[in-house]
């Protein structure tokens, strides 16, 4: 590779803007950082040879240079930002809360713009191939940008010498010239800088004082954090790292836990729903305006079982309790790597029992008929030889063209046709629907009354397994360390450059110039050295 030898003797890589050792501008490369047009030197990456800036030859080098560009990175960020924002214009498909299919929903609800939104596939924007590609391109840019800058920057900072070229010192933003600086002034300055935790190096009377160099690595550390987060989201696409499913469990019901290979069962022992007391002193003002009760708790008291010995699905396995507990919002129940989250409720929506009392023709009580919609029982024996036989049952009753029918399997609005049979062969038919009993037989002798109904709640649980979480957390922590390191600390350097009977003094920082100025002011206190001028300041 072509090397550039500086007059100080240091050999620099091709594309170097400022000599790594002495800082002297390397003539033919000044256009790279626009130094040729400005009075001050551009100190980005300390003038090191970013490898993307070298001559592009092959397609690989060109691609590399493309992703290495900050400009490209910012464009990718901007495009992602705009795309992400566009996706919130109308609800995503998963949030649409409508039974209408998406093909109709968006047009019907939002008109022509909604239709376009749907046709562009924006209703599933965040899982679209192009959005994922955008994010992936940012990831590629992160990796290449970092590799391309961290190495030359590291080299430049490692190779820098206290003795800098005069031009380098003069073209710093903070600069001053002083005549008649004594050794005492020098000693004082060094001491002051050391007190401010600067690392001071000397060479032939030239001084370089530097602090917080580690702050320069902040951006690369945070980029590593981001890359880890992106890797974590790739891992999450595999079933062994992450699964998710949803299950409705009714009170009293035991159901197989989805995504567990039929290994776990979960029982909903009881569902608790609570609301805020309207007379609560603290909240009564706010609750006065509420039409409906404000819920204070949704809770499933659950028991989790594990299958003792595997059986062929469909057969009743023997179960062993693993854990039990309350599942509330913000309080999932955890078991063996899985978590169950309270995610939905159908409050008191299904009948568990419907009780009828039955009297015979003499007005005597012959017992209760407790119909349980989810129990496979047709004939209910009562006292004195009476019995009830259920002839037809419709869990969610409706009338269609073909007659009575049911719209689901859940006893949300049960319709029951049953016969009450006496010991002497007398039989009467009744129809129950919606808390009402209709006698279907003429010559009614018995007396059937509705006594009680018991409703149960269906609890919706999200079942999750996610082993990628620690990876995300590690990525997030590294990111935070990186941004704090890069943004809350500042890399500061000052140079003292004796030349002839004068002493040149310069300062540089990557940010917070105001802070550096104050610090230089304090460091120069008690010395004869002139305070630096801000050569950029125009006002």
């Amino acid at each position, binding site marked *: 590779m072509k090397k550039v030898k500086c007059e100080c003797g240091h050999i620099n890589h091709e594309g170097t803007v400022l000599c790594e050792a002495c800082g002297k501008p390397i003539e033919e490369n000044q256009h790279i950082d626009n130094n040729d047009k400005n009075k001050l030197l*551009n100190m*980005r990456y300390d003038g090191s040879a970013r490898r993307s800036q070298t001559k592009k030859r092959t397609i690989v080098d060109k691609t590399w240079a493309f992703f290495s560009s*900050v*400009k490209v*990175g*910012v464009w990718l*960020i*901007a495009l*992602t*930002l705009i795309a*992400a*924002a566009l*996706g*919130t214009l109308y*609800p995503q498909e998963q*949030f649409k809360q409508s039974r209408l299919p998406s093909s109709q929903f968006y047009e019907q*609800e*939002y*008109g022509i713009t909604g239709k376009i939104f749907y046709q562009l596939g924006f209703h599933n924007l*965040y899982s679209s191939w192009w959005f994922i590609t955008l994010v992936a391109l940012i990831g590629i840019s992160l990796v290449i940008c970092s590799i391309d800058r961290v190495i030359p920057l590291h080299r430049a900072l490692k190779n820098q010498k206290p003795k800098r070229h005069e031009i380098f010192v003069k073209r710093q933003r903070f600069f001053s010239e002083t005549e008649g600086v004594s050794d005492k002034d020098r000693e004082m300055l060094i001491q002051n800088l050391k007190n401010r935790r600067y690392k001071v190096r000397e060479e032939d009377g030239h001084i370089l004082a530097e602090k917080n160099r580690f702050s320069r690595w902040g951006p690369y550390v945070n980029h590593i954090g981001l890359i880890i987060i992106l890797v974590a989201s790739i891992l999450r696409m595999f079933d062994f790292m992450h699964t*998710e499913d949803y299950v409705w469990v009714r009170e009293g019901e035991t159901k197989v836990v989805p995504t567990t290979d039929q290994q776990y069962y979960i029982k909903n022992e009881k569902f608790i729903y609570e609301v*805020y007391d309207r007379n*609560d002193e*603290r*909240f009564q*003002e*706010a609750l006065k*305006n509420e039409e409906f009760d*404000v*819920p*204070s*708790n949704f809770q499933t008291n659950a028991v989790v079982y594990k299958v003792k010995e595997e059986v062929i699905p469909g057969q009743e396995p023997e179960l062993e309790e693993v854990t039990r507990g309350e599942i*509330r*919002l*913000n309080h*999932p129940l955890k078991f063996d790597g899985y*978590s169950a*989250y309270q*995610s939905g409720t159908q409050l008191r929506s299904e009948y568990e029992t419907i009780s009828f009392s039955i009297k015979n023709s003499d007005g005597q009580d012959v017992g209760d008929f407790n119909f349980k919609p989810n129990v496979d029982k047709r004939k209910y024996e009562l006292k004195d030889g009476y019995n009830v036989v259920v002839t037809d049952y419709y869990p969610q009753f409706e009338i269609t063209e073909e007659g009575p029918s049911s719209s689901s399997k859940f006893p949300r609005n049960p319709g029951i046709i049953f016969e009450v049979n006496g010991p002497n062969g007398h039989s009467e038919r009744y129809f129950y629907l919606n808390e009402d009993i209709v006698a279907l037989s003429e010559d009614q002798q018995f007396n059937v009354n509705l006594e009680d109904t018991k409703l149960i709640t269906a609890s919706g649980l*999200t079942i*999750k397994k996610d082993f990628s*979480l620690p990876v*995300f957390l590690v990525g*997030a922590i590294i*990111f*935070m360390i990186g*941004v*704090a390191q890069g*943004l*809350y600390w500042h890399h500061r350097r000052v140079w003292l450059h004796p030349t002839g009977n004068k002493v040149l003094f310069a300062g540089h920082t*990557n*940010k*917070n*110039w*105001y*802070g550096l100025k104050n610090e230089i002011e304090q460091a120069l206190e008690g010395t004869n050295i002139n305070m630096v001028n801000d050569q*950029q*300041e*125009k*006002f």
Partner: protein
Amino acid sequence: MDLYTISSNFLFAAFILYLIGTLFFGATIGQKRQQNIKSKSSKIAISITILGFTAHLSYFIIRWFASGHAPVSNMFEFIAFFGMMLILGFIIIYFIYRETVLGLFALPIAILIIGYGSMFPREISPLVPSLQSYWLKIHVTTAATGEAILSISFVAGLVYLIAKVDQTVRSKHTTWLEIVMFFIFATAAFIIVTTTFEAMNYQSVFTQELNESVRDIEYHLPALIEPNSSELKTEGAFSTGLEAPEWMRGDEAGSKLNTLIWSLLAGFVLYGLTRLILRKRVAAAIQPKLSRINLDKIDEIIYRSVAIGFPVFTLGALIFASIWAQEAWGRFWGWDPKEVWALVTWLFYAAFLHLRLGAGWHGEKSAWLAVIGFTIIMINLIVVNLILAGLHSYA
């Protein structure tokens, strides 16, 4: 007096103190730079600001006691907290940079924000189950603090632009700057109009028929635009008879649109009158007062507040948010509109930092970015909560 009243009084006291503080900050400009650092009025101004902040903090603590949960659980409480953090951010930046002119802009903006928040229901409301978590206070307060610090860069950006943009000729820049000014006026107008009609106890009711159900819709401002397919119920109440477009079907869509039109119209009147009195662009009228400020320092404040705010925002609005979402819903990220806009904000400031550090966007460019950044934060606060409302629709 119960705790609720005491806390409300403290907030009101803070509001008044910020107003007085603004006047004193106003008195500092025009003075010579060296002089004004130690000048009496700047000392008084910052003292009053700190006093106001203390009152504001007292409101927050007392309300926490009264409700039993961190008062960041609805729109009013959130905005009040956001305003408080904006002031805190300003105080911190003030002690780093000693820039009094910032106070002249930061305080009025905080006042407008608090005033805006106060137009929402202020009663202490109970926590719905999804908010019952200690992550509520951790996530919301950190996120709001991050946003508030980022907003300081807008304040500095505004100062920079007013001082820097060439006002001798009309340009794209002067126009956009006036648009920013107009929105500040419109916010003030919104507060004035709402408060006036609230004091008059104004109310009119419309009945709306939708999907075969009839419902009543209350208006607290005279109806410039009625809800879609509705009938005026209150006799003699004012209405133009114009109706909201059909696609606005939300419960309060009509009322929100009406409020928006009121704010824009009143803002236009307010802005127009100001222009008429000044006989020049509003920014042009302020510019001469800012002739002595150090623009490089303001430029650095724009960047510093982003540098300080960005990590805080990331922590609060993305990391803590994800941890809580994982606890509550079992998914740390779900592309809910609020989450998306937090990401949009984060991406925007990431781009800001890259442009500043990597592409050398300083000065005016940075200042415009700071204005856009604040716009995104406001969209996140207002539009997302009131219109896009997903899981976070706590307003």
